[in-house]
């Protein structure tokens, strides 16, 4: 089992390395000079040359790549062309703010999704099930910003005006000091992520409920409640863990639109701003950050899959 996990780990490392090359090549393709972009049109040739030297722009391409890659490991992401400050300082608070958003969305959508999916499976074919599957089918189809705008229209502007539609924390204070501002962004993410968890939970639970050992437990006279909690649920959790991981990985990219919509001061909003300003250093740093989260979460999903699968765990396969 350990060998299998190590193999997955090394594959992930190689993938991240290739992604970093792809992301870095983006700078090469960009027209114009980053030093010029930072200093502006009025800069003297001497200052330009000095900044180029400072940013290592005169070094050969491979050396610049290695320098950049080395910087990523020690938290040195380069200099932002738009603000002139270091990218790391720009992103510090924003990473924490985005993590709060993701953690809250995950903490709500996973248990609720599992509960609704189980309920749906138990009431298969009845009204409650039809409602749950119908709603999750519709929600799964809607783009995230459509769900977000619908919530804003409902709760903060046109219909009711009970919740703030934008996040605004005075400088120095953190976003989580204003919980009411977090409700709509978190709710949007929950509604985007949950349908997939519900659908997967329902499908696996139905499969498990039809299996021989659940029938056996029922025939033995085990109370229905215990059949579900002790016999059925543990077997359905493993496949659902994979879907949960995929959804968490999706959150890493999905926060971009939701943060932009609610003006939430996280990495997603920073990414959109950087793309608008063509601030390559920031885009690169954020792309690598999001890719890293994506790859790590997928790796965790694989590991959960290996650990919960008895055949893989004991080395029966391979």
């Amino acid at each position: 089992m350990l060998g299998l996990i190590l193999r997955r780990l090394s594959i992930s490392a190689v993938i991240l390395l290739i992604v970093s090359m792809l992301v870095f090549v983006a700078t090469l393709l960009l027209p114009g000079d980053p030093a010029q972009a930072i200093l502006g049109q009025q800069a003297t040739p001497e200052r330009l040359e000095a900044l180029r030297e400072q940013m290592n722009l005169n070094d050969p391409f491979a050396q610049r790549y290695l320098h950049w890659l080395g910087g990523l490991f020690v938290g040195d992401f380069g200099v932002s062309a738009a603000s002139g400050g270091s990218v790391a300082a720009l992103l510090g608070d924003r990473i924490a703010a985005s993590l709060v958003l993701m953690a809250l969305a995950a903490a709500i959508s996973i248990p609720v999704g599992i509960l609704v999916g189980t309920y749906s499976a138990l009431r298969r074919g009845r009204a409650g099930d039809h409602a749950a599957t119908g709603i999750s089918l519709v929600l799964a189809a809607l783009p995230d910003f459509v769900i977000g705008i619908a919530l804003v229209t409902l709760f903060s502007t046109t219909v009711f005006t009970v919740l703030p539609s934008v996040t605004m924390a005075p400088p120095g204070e953190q976003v989580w000091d204003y919980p009411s501002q977090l409700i709509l962004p978190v709710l949007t993410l929950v509604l985007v992520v949950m349908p997939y968890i519900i659908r997967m939970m329902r499908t696996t639970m139905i499969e498990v409920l039809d299996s021989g050992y659940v029938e056996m437990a029922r025939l033995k006279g085990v109370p229905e409640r215990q059949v579900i909690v002790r016999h059925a649920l543990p077997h359905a959790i493993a496949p659902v863990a994979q879907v949960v991981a995929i959804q968490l990985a999706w959150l890493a990219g999905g926060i971009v639109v939701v943060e932009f919509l609610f003006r939430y001061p996280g990495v997603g909003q920073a990414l959109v701003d950087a793309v608008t300003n063509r601030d390559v250093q920031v885009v690169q740093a954020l792309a690598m950050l999001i890719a890293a989260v994506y790859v790590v979460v997928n790796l965790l999903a694989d590991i959960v899959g290996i650990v919960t699968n008895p055949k893989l765990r004991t080395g029966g396969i391979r």
Partner: protein
Amino acid sequence: MTTIDTATEAIAVPPGLLRRIIRQRQAKIGLVLTGIVVLVAVVGPLLLPWLTGYTSTEFAGRPFQPDGVFGTDNLGRDILSRFLGGGLTLLVFAALATALGMVLGTAAGMLAAYQGGALDGIIMRGNDVLLALPQLVFALLAITVLGPQGWVVVLVIGITHAPRIARVTRSAASAVITEDFIRASEMYAVPRWKILLKDVLPNITGPLMVELGLRMTYSIAAIASLSFLGLGMQPPTADWGLMINENRIALTVQPWGVILPVLAIAILTVGSNLITDAVARASATVEENK
């Protein structure tokens, strides 16, 4: 002709995939929903001038006024005109991106499954790399380098669809290529591309149709999202995603500029998802009948 007909009747061949799709209630609802939006998007630009009196970029008055049917937008343009004129680009771009992704993905997936060996390895590892970046982040990276232009959006959405489609194609095709009729074609020395096109492709249409529907829904969502972020279609183009971006600051005074395009995108994606769901069910029954 008649003898053949009676012969097929006798074996009771299951109805074709299309007919089985249409028979489902979900497919009917989905077709009606998407049909309405497609009709608005396609006929809208033609009816524009005499229906509202303004083109989609013409100024009709002062900003955020209740003039006309739905009022004016942030720059004083007629909202109904912009709505009617703003759907076609989204649909065309989504269709182009989906088509590009389907062609690339199907070709890569079939090649990987049929050739196996080193080529399979290279294609599938390449897929893993492309899948390591979320689609939207990949698109944003491309837009940073190449600028927010229509062809960049189509290209990058198409390319990021391809690995996902290739995976599905590969697993569907691997089941087909071990069949005897493929070996028979090989013995007749039929060229490889012909085997893939004439023998493999027709046998994996079920999963590919599901993938087509799914990717179309995602393309619409992704392209509309990019425009919403202000990084897809650029002003003064009339575009549903862009309209939402431009008018959301005035949601309290002039909600129509946001509500109309949001509703259209919602109906469109829900409709195409319903159709996809029906296709998935219909092609699943084919598998059972085999």
